[in-house]
């Protein structure tokens, strides 16, 4: 058992991150190569200014019109994405492990706050789940994969919450938490989670076509 735990807390973490970052990198490289080969006109129209302008506009909360049409969903989604990164990165439990491994550390959330934020993440994922079952136009677009993806993100946060509180079977829950976290990371390059890398580019291209070619705003 100890060997197994050492493995998932050691080499497996490395493997997961390498697959996550490396996988996205490989996909990005393939993506650019194919664009250059077949659709290089994209590069003639993209400008740094319009790309950043569009990405920037869409990062400002409630700035684009569509976000104000669905403020509740959008607000929750925005908060969710922020916390998705912020909670794991600024969690004291995680930073202690980084400290032990690499002798570096950074500021962390007070545990009580981190706990509350985790609950918010879990709640927003439950909201997304419910929305896919209930809102007609979203339901039409939803397939089983979408529920699987929500579950994959939900599990690390849920098990992390349970492990932290040590409600029951601490060691087992902790192991499941680690595995779920690693699963989520590994899945990123191979699923729609890769939108974290592609979305800035599709946004930048649309922003450039709208702004640079058509002199119009795309928000």
């Amino acid at each position, binding site marked *: 058992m100890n060997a197994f735990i050492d493995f998932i807390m050691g080499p497996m973490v490395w493997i997961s991150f390498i697959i996550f970052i490396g996988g996205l990198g490989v996909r990005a490289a393939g993506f650019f190569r194919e664009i250059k080969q077949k659709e290089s006109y994209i590069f003639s129209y993209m400008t740094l200014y319009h790309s950043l302008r*569009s990405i920037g506009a869409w990062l400002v909360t409630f700035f684009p*019109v569509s976000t104000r049409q669905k403020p509740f969903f*959008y607000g929750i989604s925005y908060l969710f994405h922020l916390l998705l990164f912020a909670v794991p990165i600024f969690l004291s439990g995680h930073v202690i492990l980084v400290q032990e491994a690499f002798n570096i550390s950074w500021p962390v959330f007070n545990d009580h706050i981190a706990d509350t934020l985790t609950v918010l993440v879990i709640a927003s994922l439950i909201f997304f789940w419910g929305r896919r079952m209930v809102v007609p*136009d*979203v339901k039409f*677009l939803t397939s089983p994969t979408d529920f699987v993806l929500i579950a994959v993100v939900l599990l690390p946060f849920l098990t992390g919450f349970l492990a932290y509180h040590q409600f029951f079977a601490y060691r087992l829950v902790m192991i499941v938490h680690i595995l779920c976290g690693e699963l989520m990371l590994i899945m990123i390059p191979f699923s729609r989670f890769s*939108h974290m890398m592609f979305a800035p580019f599709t946004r930048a291209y649309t922003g450039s076509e*709208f702004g640079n070619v058509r002199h*119009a705003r795309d928000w």
Partner: protein
Amino acid sequence: MQDTSQMETKQQDEKMDPAVEGGLERLTQEKIVKGINQVLHEESGARLKAYVQTCMRCGLCSDACSYFLSNDKNPRFSPAAKVKQTIWEMLEKKGNVSKDFLRRAVRIAHLECNVCRRCSMYCPFGIDIAYMMLLVRRICHKLEITPQYIQDTVNSHSATLNQMWVKEDEWIDTLQWQEEDGRDEFENLRIPLDKRGADIMYSVIAPEPKFQAGLIYQAAVMMHAAGVNWTMPSRPGWDNSNMAMYTGDNEISGRITRTFYEAAADLNVKRIVMGECGHAFRSIYDVGNRWVSWAMPPFEVVHAIAFYHELLTSGRLTIKEKFTEKVTLHDPCNVSRGRGLHDLAREVVKMTCSDFVEMTPNREHNYCCGAGGGVINCGPPYKTERMVNNRVKAEQLKATGAKVLIAPCHNCHSGLEDIIHHYKLDMDVKFLGDIIFETMDKKVYVPGE
């Protein structure tokens, strides 16, 4: 407002016109698979993949679409739903789809989307759904199941290089007729044909000589009053419209655009000015030109709106008396989202009209007229469902309380007239040129003035 609650947009499985049905009949499964895969894999690449894989099925695009809104938020009209019912399934089945599926795909791509790009402004990732709808149209073109009326229009483009089967002598005759009429009122008015080295080549769409020759007359009077050094080509290349762009017939689309620019190059003009048309502008500005490898147009192209603005602000045209009826302005998709001319258009309206009221939403967020993107060009068989699908536009127009609707685009003009008639709105549609013509100082130009 007419009660359309009993009218529903046609069920997607209803038979379509003879060209679609005949085309479907002639298809073999092998041709279907081959055609689809050729477009989705050889002609497309990472861009399509990115759009298909990145969509998170969030549904923010739904509220963008006038079809979705006009059909009481029926989920299958949401932009992402349109892609789901066409592209996603074609990819999943590796092109091995049924004829019933294809019939539905023709309907969705040609009748349930104006490729207006409003949805790309609503999608957080800026996914270009219009691009994907045009890919579906390209597939339909390759499989020879394009709707009849618009296919006939493309056949006209192919045979005569204009949209309306106008013969070469008919074109010249029409211009000379308008010139003759003009000279009754204005001494020395000319519509110079093939004047090499002129400042401006003026370009129209084929419906103008065919049945709206008065618009050419108006343009000639404006050019005359402003003392513009202009010309028009006598040969094919005079029509800047391009319905091939909307059926996925990229080869003819490119050919049309090349002929257009070669006409301008032949005449060695400094600039091209276009009449009030949206899709024509899109064609020569960022579609057809790209097919023939011009990243941007090889000539400076000025849309009528910008040209009117130039003439008015420079004082070459003066307004005698402003238009007093209450007006509102419709921002055509291809001129607003497509070229950012909405603010200039407003300046022209304010220079010529004293009572202007905005419709909401407006500018880049305006709803499509419902006629554009080739939809009205699919013809009479689909008019009633188009009216059902344009309900949200009718509501938007009615809310302005305006008497006159200015629509600086031919397709919009026709579509909006249909809407006004169907929904019994008390409005008149006018071109921006109509307003200027009514209010301008129609002086006779004397050289040296």
